[in-house]
Structure formats: structure tokens, C-alpha cells
């Protein structure tokens, strides 16, 4: 996908939000994978936690990559500022717990407020997607 096209699309979709360019490790990956945008990432995190229950940071990153079918270029470290922000907003809560390799890890879970936030954001997302879908369906005949 061409960079310019990608950008235009982003503007259409997320004009309300600030664009954040995330540092990307591998130049090669940049060309084939899609950068993700901060607001979207929050949505993904919340949804992941909703479906899979409490997870630690690595687990969340892993799941997001898997679900996206490895289409996303995610610098996994960038998750942590986001998690902190969601926690400060009260959407998620966290606790120390033992991880599968018997290390201490921080487990994040969705709170009731987070569930509500997710629901409303999903609704918004759905709406936007519907609208975009209609635009994509426009042909010259329907327009004239």
C-alpha cells in the first residue's frame, strides 16, 4: 500500500484524533505492515482484555499481533504508556501476578468503566465504518 493513500485514509477516519507516528524498528517491516494509530490501539487493547480476560503486557501485544494476522507493525514497548493512560482513566486495573514462565508480571484487566467505554467506542467505530462503507460503495451511476 502506498504511503500517501494510507495517510489520506487515516485523515478520513480519525480526523478527530492526533496522529502519532510510532517509532518503527525495521525498515523492511514498514513497507509491508501497517502502522497503527493510538486511538485504535486503545480499542484493540480493551477488546483483547474483554475477550481474553486478564493479561500481562507481553500477552496483550502478542494477541494483538496474532489477531491482526501479523499485519500490524507494533513496537511492543509503546503499549506501556498506553496501558498507563488507560489505567489512569480508570478503564483498566492492574496487579502483580506470576506469569507462565514463573516471573512476576503485571496483569491488566478490564474494569466496569472500561467495559462501558469499550462499548461506546465500538458503537462509534461501527458507525464510522458503516459511513465509510457507503462511500466505498459509490459508483458513478449512483452519483448522477
Amino acid at each position, binding site marked *: 500500500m502506498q504511503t500517501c493513500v494510507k495517510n489520506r485514509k487515516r485523515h478520513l477516519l480519525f480526523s478527530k484524533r492526533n496522529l502519532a507516528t510510532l517509532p518503527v524498528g525495521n525498515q523492511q517491516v514498514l513497507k509491508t505492515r501497517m502502522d497503527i494509530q493510538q486511538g485504535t490501539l486503545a480499542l484493540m487493547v480493551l477488546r483483547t482484555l474483554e475477550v481474553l480476560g486478564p493479561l500481562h503486557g*507481553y500477552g496483550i501485544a502478542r494477541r494483538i499481533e496474532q489477531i491482526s494476522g501479523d499485519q500490524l507493525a507494533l513496537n511492543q514497548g509503546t503499549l506501556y504508556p*498506553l496501558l498507563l493512560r488507560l489505567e489512569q482513566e480508570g478503564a483498566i486495573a492492574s496487579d502483580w501476578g506470576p506469569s507462565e514462565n514463573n516471573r512476576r508480571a503485571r496483569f491488566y484487566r478490564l474494569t466496569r468503566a472500561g467495559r462501558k467505554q469499550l462499548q461506546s467506542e465500538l458503537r462509534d467505530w461501527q458507525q464510522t465504518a458503516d459511513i465509510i462503507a457507503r462511500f466505498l460503495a459509490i459508483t458513478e451511476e449512483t452519483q448522477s
Partner: protein
Amino acid sequence: MRLLKRLLARLCNLASRQSDDRRLLEEMEAHISHLTEENLRSGMTPAEARRQAVLKFGAVEAIREQYHAEKSLPFIESVVQDVRYSSRVLLKSWGFTSIAAISLALAIGANTTIFSVMKRLLLDRLDVPHAGQLRLLHWHGDKHTAVSNMWGISDNVPEGIGAASFSYPAFEQLRSDNRVLEDLFAFKGVGRMNATIDGNAQILQGELVSGNYFDQLQVQPQLGRPILADDDRIGAPIVALISAELWQRAFGSSSVVVGRTIKVNMVPVTIVGVVPPGFTGAKSVQSSPDIFLPLSSQPLVEPRGKNGSLLGASSPQVWWLNIMGRTKAGIADVTAQAALDTSLSAVVRSTLHPDANTTIPRLDVQDGSRGLFLSKQTFAKPLEVLMAVVGLVLLLACSNIASLLFARSMARQREVALRLALGAGRARVLRGALTESLLLSALGGALGVALAFAGCRALPTLLANPWETSQFGMPLDFTVLAFTASVTLLSGLLFGTVPAWIATRSDAGACLKATGPGSTRRRKGFSGKMIVSFQVMLSTLLVAGALLFVGTLFQLAHINPGFRTDHLVLFAIQQPESRYPAPKDLQLHHQIEERLRALPGVQSVTISEVSYISDSMENANFLPEGETPDPEKDQSAWNNAVGSGFFQTMGIPLLAGRDFNENDTASAPKVGILSESLARKAFPGQNPIGKRFLAHFHPREGNPGDLIEVVGICGDTRYWSLKQDPVGMFYQPYQQTPNLDFGATYEVRTSLSPASIAPSLRKAVQSIDPDLPLQEIRTQQEQIDASMQQERIIAALTASFGVLALVLASVGVYGVMAYSVAQRTSEIGIRMALGALPREVLTMVLREATWIALVGITCGIGATLLSTRLVTSLLYGLHPNDPVILATSALLLALVGLVASWAPARRAAAVEPMQALRHE
């Protein structure tokens, strides 16, 4: 809501300083180990697995920073950082900091104080609803005006004389004729009244008011009822309202004060109410009467005029009442003035019966919102001068701060360039400069506010006489404070940030590469030197002004008033007229005089109707025997009624004849003593002793006057003011004058201090009449000092501002020269390497400084020549462009310039060529 939660959490973190990121480190460690394990499983070598894991994780530092930014409020944190850095910088250069802060503080403090006083004295209005509607009636006339007898203050107007005093018949007539203003009301500040409250004799300031006074002023008492029209009729029981201040002082703010009876000038008076706090009467904004009485009580509480009454038609010749009224909607002042003028002419014709030689006074309607506004006459000029002076000081302080900050930020340009080169944003650098300026301004501002508070405390005590209780409250005016503070602080901010802004715009690389003597040096130095020249100019002006006022004070202090001013204790006794109608008052004073003479420690005692250098005087007509009255000529002389032994007690030399003595009683032949200059004028070329003159004659009132024989000649003295040259005077024994209406001042020559002799004086007077208080106990020297108070205040303030100006100018010169030398270090090094002698370098720097100073001094002298004309009326014994003073101030400034540039010049001369060149 979410935003709020986040902000709250961040603020919590900020407050609890939870900045450690141990949790993040641990999570990152765990994360990377997970990744590594995964990579290992996919068959990488351990080292590669770890490397890929770290790559996948992303830039750790960036994430940490981002995490931190999420966690707390980076903006506030960086502000805290800025503040900490700036205070460290300011602390390190504490010399600069203290000078800048003190300049700011003085500018804010001094200006706020003077502006506050000015506002209080000249701008504030009476504290009544819609004060702007009040109009004061005033009249003016020429020297032949029909009004000849006035109780009150007259003012000089272009036509001749003017006053706001009217006779009672005039008030009644104007009030009944008036259709152009709201109902007219009248009042009269009668000054001191002797009151007895709960057996304590006190002095109260009294005001007589007409029955509609409170109604028309729209003032409601805070307790009880106002004085009503019904109280203001002859025969009504005398009621009074008291001030909030007296209520608190004498009655402890007790509500049972209503209905209490006190004695005012021996007359029982019932208190019916208390006026609201802040109400100062209609006369003045600055001080309030203690007690308000109806006009109808005048014949009893303040008897004056024929049969003691000024009311009704009994004394139409005495003009004494102040009249005010509110404007009527839709009627212009000129219309009102024309209508009221007609009424006034009618009443003057019917009551004063003017003849062909006299003129009818014309009425004018003036602004009454500030009462009689007497403070304008007294304070307007000195306050204008002080305001100009503090304005200049403000300008000086601002320019001082400007030049200091300017030189400083120029010197720090390299630092700015370095920070920019290291990646700091321009906004961040600017914010740093702004923070520093703000800190400095806040420091100076805080000091300035403290100074303003202190000044507003101190100034009223400076303005008051030491022997009088001052009621002149001087609240700090916050609008004024806000104004001066913002002007000064803004200038600080402006000159702190603008150079930083310029610095951030310049090319960082070029600036870093540029060495000391860059090609732009001259231009940069130019504006700094301009500011310093400007400072020197302002300082010259201020120093010259200060020298003028100090010189005036010096001249005044060295005037010989014509009498001995040392070891003289003065006090006044005002006998109540109800108890001592003439001629009983003369007997009373004679009795007191005798009693005091017998006291131990008293060398001699005498009485005078008018005390010296106290702005009071008496004038009577004076006609040498044989001359005929001529209204075209000035046939009057200043006079004073005095006791026996007056000339000996006062130390006025008797040039011929004798002093008054015990034999000059009321029944003895009338005698008088002339001062030298009057004798020479009245009896030129003759021996005046034994000659006679006619005084106190009023043909129109059927008074033929007294024929008085001259028995002595005394030296000339200054009379009411030190500034007034000695005047020709005649003296009479007080027993031979009609009365002592206004009481008398006792002059006691004693070797004791006033404090130690006062109790025995008081006891002696009270053994004659326990209700007679001693008023205004002071020494003659204190009286003279008080008369020079205005000059002293101006001299003290301008002198301190002058010294301040010198300090600021020297700081300015030093700063700019030190900066210039620092900039030219390598240039000087090259000169020295090429053979310049240290002495030549020294001269070079000093010459540069002298040029700056000379430009400033020349402009300053020019400004002085232009502006001193404005203060001529405040000077005494000095020409406003006194060459000595101008030369002195120029020399002083030149000296200051040299001294201030000496240290930088020495530093330049001590430059080691090799070191200077290596310094690059």
C-alpha cells in the same frame, strides 16, 4: 470525565513526586525476556534472540519518556525545572538580582505611595450617594466688594477675592428663590469645640448643618435619626449626631449613646444618632467632624457676631455659611449660576446696602463633589512635583532594569545558542527567559508592595503636626498599586524576553562560531549606551531638583525671623464665649497670665492674639493722625494684640521707647508699638514716639476707631510665614483691644522642656477654670518646623530619590562598561600585544564612559532648565536655574560616571595579552 480522572491521577503523581519508574523497568524486563524466550524457541542464538527482542520492543528511552509524560504533567514539571534553574541563576548573580529587585521595589513602592496620597487628597469624592451631583456655591468679587466681614477661608481668583462663604440671609434668600438646583443646604465647619463627655474635657471638631443637610446628602445615620428640619429652628432642643470615630472612641460603640447628653461649649446637647462610617461631612473628604449640630444652635454653642447670633437678620454682614445643592435634571450649571447670581445680587443690595464705591459679588456654581476641596490649594502643587519626580524614578528604574537585563541577555547569547544547538526548542528557551524575568519581577514586586504599605503608613504621620491628633487616614489604594506594579513588571518582562527572543532568532551556529569582537558589537553596544545616557540624563534632572529643594530648606532654616525661637513653649486657650463674653475674656486671660508668671521654671510669660509663623495674621486699618481716609489707597497694617512684656519674652529688640507694662490697662490711654518699617513708612523723617494713629475704624458701621499713641519702636519680624519677608506691624496691649474672639496664644519662656512644664501649666489654668483645656502645646521651634513641613517632605523625598537616581545611574554605567570591556577583551589583548600601555587602555575605557556620561549630563541640564520653571513657586531664596546647583549636579554625575567605570577600566588595563588571545 475521563479527562478529569486522568488529570487527577497525574496531579496526584506530580504532588506525591512518584517519578520512579521501577514498575515500568520491571515490566519491560519481563516483556523482553518473554520475547527472548519466544525467539529462542524459534531457533535463534541467545545473543540474536535478545537483540531481536530489544528491537521488537522499540526504543526503550523514548518509551520511558513517553511513559513518564503520560504519568505526570510534563509541562508543570518543566516549569518547576525552569523556576529551579532560574532561581539558581539569580542567586548566583545576587548583585544583579538585588539591584534589579530593589529598583523594581522602589519604583513600585514610591509610586504607589505618592499616587495613593494624590488620589486621596485630590481625586477622592465625598462618601455620599451620587457625589458627582453636588454643586458648591461660590462667589467672587474685586477689592471693592461689598462683602467685608468673612468667617472662613477666602481664595485668590483673577478678579480679586473669592470664597464659598455666605451670610445667613443670603442662604435663606437663595434657598427660597432657588428653582435651578435641588433644595439648597448649608453647613459650617466651626473647628474646635470644647466638649465635656462623662466629665472629661475634650476637644471636638464641630460642624453646624442645616435641617435638610442629611436629607439632601442622602445619608442615613447608622444609629438613631438624622438632624431634621424641625431640629433646625430657634428654640428647639439642641440635638447632635456624632461621627462613627467619636462613637467608638468615647462611647465604645455602645447603642445606648442615643439620648445621652453631653456638653458642647458648656451647652447641654442631646445625641440623637451616629453617622455611618466613611461619611466625612460635606466639607472635606480627608477628615471628618466629630459632631454635627443644627445651624439653629449657633448662638448658643458658637456665639459670634452681634449679640452672638449669625442667624436670621441679626448679622447680615458676616459671611460664613457654605452652601451646596444637588443638580436638577436637565438644568445646566450655567443656567443655575445665572439664576442664583440674580438672587445673590438682590440679597446683597437689600442686606449690605452697598454704596457707589462697592461692588456686588458675582456667584458661581462649582463642583462640590469633593467638599470645599481645600486640599487642592495646599497639596496640588507639591504633589504634582512629587508625582513628576516619582514618575521619573519609575522611568529610571524601568530603564535600569532594561539595561541590566539587556546587557545580561546579550552576554548570555552564547548560552542560548548552545542550548538551541543541543536541540532545545525556541519556545523552551524563551520560556526559560520568561521564567527568570517573572521571578525577578515577583521578587521586586513583593518588596515593592511591602514598601508601598509602609509608605502609606508613614506618609500621614509626616503630613501631620506633632501636637495635633491626625485623623488623616491613608489607605493603600489597590488600583494604584495594580497600575504601578503592572507597569514595572511588564517592563521587566519585556526587557527580559525580547533579547532572548532576538537571541533565539539568530543563527545558533554563527553565534557559536563568532568570537568576542564580532562585527555586530558596535550596534549592540549602542543601544545599551543609549539607555545608560538616558539614565544619566534622568539622574541629572532628579539630582538638580533634589538640590533645589534641599537648598530651599537650607535657606528657610537659616532665616532670622526677627525673634528668639528657642526655649519658648506655646499653647492656646480658647475661652467659651458663652461663659466669657467680652470684656470678661480679657479679665480671664489677664488672670491666667498672672498665675503662670508665678510658676517655678517660668522666666517670663506673655500673650499674643496671633502666634508667629502659624499661617495666621490679623490686619486692621491704620491711619497716621492727620491723614484722611482714602479708599483708593491701602491704609491698613498688620497688627497683633499682645500682653505686657511681649517684646522681652519673644526677644524682639526694642529700638526706641518702652515695652508694654502692667499700667497699660483697659482704662489707661491707648498705646501702641510700631515695627521699624511701619514707623518709617507712616512717619517718614520724624521721631514716631509720641505720634498718634487711628486704627479699627469702620465708618459704615458707625465705629470711629481708636486713636493710639506710639510709645515704642521694635525690630521687624516675619509674621505668618518664614517665606514672607518682614512686614510692617503695629502692636497693642490686648486689654486695650475690643476682645479676644479667637482666644489667645501664651508664650512661655522657660528653660524646661515642654513635656516637663506642661503639667504645671495645665494645673495653673485649671485652678482658674477646670473646663478650660490647654490646646496645641508646642515649642516655637516646633511651630516653625511645622510651617516648613511641606518643604521638608519635598526635600526629604526628592533627596532620597536623588540619591537613588545616582545609585541607579552608577549601576547603569558600571554595567554597560563592564559588558563592553568583557566584549572587547581580545581586542584589548591585541592592542596590548601591539604595544598599547595599560594607562592608555585605562584612558580609552574611561573616555568611552565619560562620553556616555557627558551626553546624558548635557541632555539632563537641558531638561532641568526646561522643567525647573514649573517648581518656582515651591522654592525660596533660590533661582530655579541656580548655576551653582546645575554645576554641582553635573559634576556629581560626571564623578559618578568616572567612579562607576573605574573598575571596568582597571580590569581592561590589567588584561594579559596572551591570556586574552587564548581566551578565544
